[in-house]
């Protein structure tokens, strides 16, 4: 029994076209419809105590998103999962939940994310050619991209945020890229930004077919951990 829960959910094709704030609203409404005894903040404009691990940009699907929720009544994690799914639309599904007791929230704990991106190349390339292109790119000390900031766009070196990157051929002209990237409140590399710079820096004309998040990680003492493992740290 717990008054705070951490849950994992997935986002499928149906719901991948909405931005982060819109998704937050979808959850808030789903929680109301499902009659989850959620806790609210005080004040003029009470909000549900609900925190997401990492924003999702438009176009991204995921099998492994995390969120923390505070309740006013105890609820079994399994019951919570069954219940909230009644209020969630097609394309969003709570998968599992654990009780939580940490002063840190999920947003502060997330530090890395694993992605799979399917892309097409305009001109035929072999697996070996793509490998070489990636290898050359990763050998560089600096990969500069323009990132939006409060004072307008400014150049940022994203190389340190790429932990690994590799590609395999899945079809004629189609590749599957796997990328492990820094993520979270402190240093976040968005996958769409990575792919944009990949195409620009290597002069490879690509067409992105899908972007999918495989996993989110928290880190403690230089170890990657499943966010459930740190739910009670």
């Amino acid at each position: 029994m717990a008054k705070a829960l951490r849950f994992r959910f997935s986002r499928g094709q149906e719901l991948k076209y909405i931005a982060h704030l819109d998704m937050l609203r979808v959850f808030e409404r789903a929680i109301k419809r499902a009659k989850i005894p959620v806790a609210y903040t005080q004040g003029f404009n009470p909000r549900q105590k609900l925190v997401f691990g990492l924003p999702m940009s438009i176009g991204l699907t995921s099998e492994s998103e995390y969120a923390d929720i505070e309740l006013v009544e105890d609820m079994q994690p399994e019951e919570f999962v069954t219940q909230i799914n009644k209020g969630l639309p097609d394309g969003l599904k709570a998968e599992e939940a654990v009780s939580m007791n940490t002063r840190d929230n999920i947003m502060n704990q997330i530090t890395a994310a694993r992605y799979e991106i399917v892309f097409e190349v305009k001109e035929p390339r072999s697996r070996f050619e793509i490998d070489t292109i990636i290898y050359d790119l990763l050998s560089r000390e600096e990969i500069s991209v323009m990132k939006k900031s409060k004072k307008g766009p400014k150049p940022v070196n994203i190389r340190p945020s790429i932990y690994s990157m590799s590609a395999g051929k899945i079809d004629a002209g189609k590749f599957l890229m796997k990328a492990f990237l820094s993520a979270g409140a402190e240093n976040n590399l968005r996958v769409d930004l990575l792919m944009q710079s990949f195409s620009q820096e290597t002069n490879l004309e690509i067409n992105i077919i899908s972007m999918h998040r495989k996993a989110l990680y928290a880190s403690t003492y230089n170890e990657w951990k499943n966010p459930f493992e740190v739910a009670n740290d």
Partner: protein
Amino acid sequence: MHPLTMMQLKIDDSILLKVEKPAKYTGNEWNMVKKHLNNIKVRFAFCFPDDYEIGMSHLGMKILYHILNKREEVYCERAFAPWVDMEQIMREKNMPLYTLETYTPLSEFDMVGFTLQYEMSYTNILNMLELGRIPVLSKDRTEGMPFVIAGGPCACNPEPLADFVDFFVIGEGEEVILEIVDEYISWKEAGESRAEFLKRVSKVEGVYVPSFYDISYNEDGTIKDIIPANSDVPGRIRRRIIKDLDSVDFPDNIIVPYIGTVHDRIMLEIFRGCVRGCRFCQAGFIYRPVRERSHEKLYEIAKASAQNTGYDEISMVSLSTSDYSSLPELCNNLIEFTEEEKISLSLPSLRVDNFSLGLMDKVSKVRKSGLTFAPEAGTQRLRDVINKGITNEDLVSSVKLAVSGGWNQVKLYFMLGLPTETMEDVEGISKLSINLIESCRDITKAHGKALNITLSTACFVPKPFTPFQWEPMEEMDSLMKKQYHLKDLIKKRTRNIKYNYHDARISLMEAVLARGDRRLGKVIYTAWSNGCKFDGWDEFFSFDKWMEAFNECGLDPKFYANRKREYSEILPWDHIDMGVSKEFLIRENQKAYEGDLTRNCAAGCSACGAQIYKTGICTKTRRGLVYGESTEV
């Protein structure tokens, strides 16, 4: 099985990830109706001729979507005007405009219905028809093609759209739309021709088939006669109304969009019509008589809606919340459950008095930021002309009350170009606003925050079925002069007033389309062909293109907008009967020039004509009077 071959489009990422807010084009929202097409006899595409975010905020669409879909053999789906980025891709890829429910092109529907909420959306209708692969002109539609229908407030003068719409529905749609559907099913079973269907529906009360009427013109361009094609066709089309609002279904399971829309909340329609009869306001005349929904019914609807949608806001909808007779009961009941469920309640268009301020204190969880007042005119004289029963003293005391209650922002709405307006009236607007700030100075000093006013002026547009339907719209130059003069006056005196004014050129076009005849069809068609669309949006409106269209068609916009019409002139909408009588409107027009007030329906009846419906406020006895008994104030 639906007789037409079904075509389902596939819209993939190569399109969706290139446009802004792709969720506008994917459907599948919470509570969207899904049906098996096998059992469907009538497929209805409900079209809103503007962006999704506007259209999904519209209550009428939600009501009719619900009513139609309650019928098992009917499937009502939705379509909106694609935003320009999406339209461009659709045209490049040769992709037809489709409905969000089943991704079916508009051309495959039995009926395609447009709602006419504002004149400046007319070109979007043409655009949507073309994108939906339906011939834009009614006369080009042949057997097997959809019937194009239109309804909504602007349908009270349907003439400018007569070339494009097969038939119009005049008035409230809940009952008549089902009668039309029934007629369609039996027509289909009888295997008759397209022309036969139009004959059938023309007999349904409230339906207007424009092609069954011939219009002849005088040499000076005014209308000579409106002649029904044969004796089967009604000479006048009477507007439909719902006699008892509690008896018709109101949706409690509305679609919840995935992206923010303009009114993204539960809308509780508490009553229809308005008792007040401000002489410039079309809504005050075309929805008569006032009919209320019971507070018990509203409470049920609110509770069920909250459960079914998960929305955290409920807003009451009507032309004037304060006039709802059971407002205290309704609020008390609602407050109880909304507080518990953390739902905020909003009560727009409340008059400010002690009761409403107390109420707002109780219900609103939002910060005290803005209050809205609509004096509409700057001097008492002009407010009497327009029958706006509000005095300077009322306004000052209301604003003072609000300011002592902690509100420090006030929005004021006025109109420029009202009949009989002089520069003195225009200056009155600035005087009145400055006077408000000064009257509140004592109170605001104590708070340490000055009163800030946002002042907006719209240009007065004379509308059909109002006492001002014969009046000329003020010339553009003169309107602009007034705008600049007011701007100067305010700038000189204070920094606490922010002044906004409407583009007079958009208002001029609105005036033309609102009171035009069917010759304007050519102009609308030409303007659209020249690229006009989303005319209600400042960033797309092109005055020059519209003027070119008038030129090409040899018509003069001033003839429609700026000409004073005689009482005896046949008006393009004279064959439409909205309930209020012409005699009453003439009476009101004359009283306006005398500066004579007309009491509101709650205080006594003025025999406006709407008593023919024998319902609502007309049948209430008040102070011993029944409708029609006395016509004096």
